[in-house]
């Protein structure tokens, strides 16, 4: 049974997640608030196939994209220096003991086919919640196969920044595919 208490308990996690994407604390607060309300309203549609946290995070992602689209004043985090620290980012995926929060599944043939078919849809949605240069670094590296040195020059970043951006983009995208499948499985 999904109780309001269980939903509310995820607020700090969601807040960290939202702050990692939006620079503005007020906007992050609002997105989290809307997510919790939406979750309460649709608590009966929670299938229990994913964890409460995964389910709430998938709602929050869409709220964040809405927020970014709706409010021009909310600036997508662009400069790496201002962004969430490595620890904050890692907290989204790893428990304090350094292990994965959620088990990592093997992707078999069906998943590989789905990724190929849904790549653009998922990437478009997912990359909107990424800092712009992070999304660009991913496109240059993975879609266009550019070397790191060329990417650094194109985006005016250091090799270290580039590695961090690619790491974050890969971690986020992988999660977006997982979420899109969980969502699809529910429908």
């Amino acid at each position, binding site marked *: 049974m999904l109780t309001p208490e269980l939903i509310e308990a995820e607020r700090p996690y969601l807040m960290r997640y939202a702050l990692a994407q939006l620079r503005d604390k007020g906007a992050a607060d609002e997105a989290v608030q809307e997510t919790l309300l939406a979750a309460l309203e649709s608590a009966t549609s929670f299938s229990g196939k994913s964890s409460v946290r995964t389910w709430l995070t998938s709602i929050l992602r869409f709220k964040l994209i809405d927020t970014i689209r709706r409010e021009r004043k909310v600036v997508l985090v662009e400069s790496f220096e201002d962004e969430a620290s490595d620890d904050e980012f890692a907290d989204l995926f790893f428990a304090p003991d350094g292990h994965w929060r959620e088990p990592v599944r093997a992707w078999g043939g069906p998943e590989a086919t789905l990724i190929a078919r849904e790549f653009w849809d998922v990437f478009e949605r997912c990359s909107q919640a990424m800092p712009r240069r992070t999304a660009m670094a991913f496109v240059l590296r993975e879609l*266009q196969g550019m070397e790191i040195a060329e990417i650094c020059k194109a985006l005016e970043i250091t090799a270290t920044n580039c590695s961090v951006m690619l790491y974050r983009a890969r971690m986020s995208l992988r999660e977006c595919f997982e979420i899109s499948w969980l969502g699809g499985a529910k429908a």
Partner: protein
Amino acid sequence: MMIKCKEASWLISASLDRPLTLAEQVRLSMHLLMCGNCKNFSQQMAQLRAIARQVGNGE
């Protein structure tokens, strides 16, 4: 020295962009021997790359 999944995932990502140092290779492969989650993560990264490159080539 034992590394955790957090560091392992970082090395797996880095290995897609540059050759790992010998020390990094040793630490990562020791971890992968014991950790199914990171083994799966490593395969997922390879799958994502293969598909992204296909998509990037307009296939």
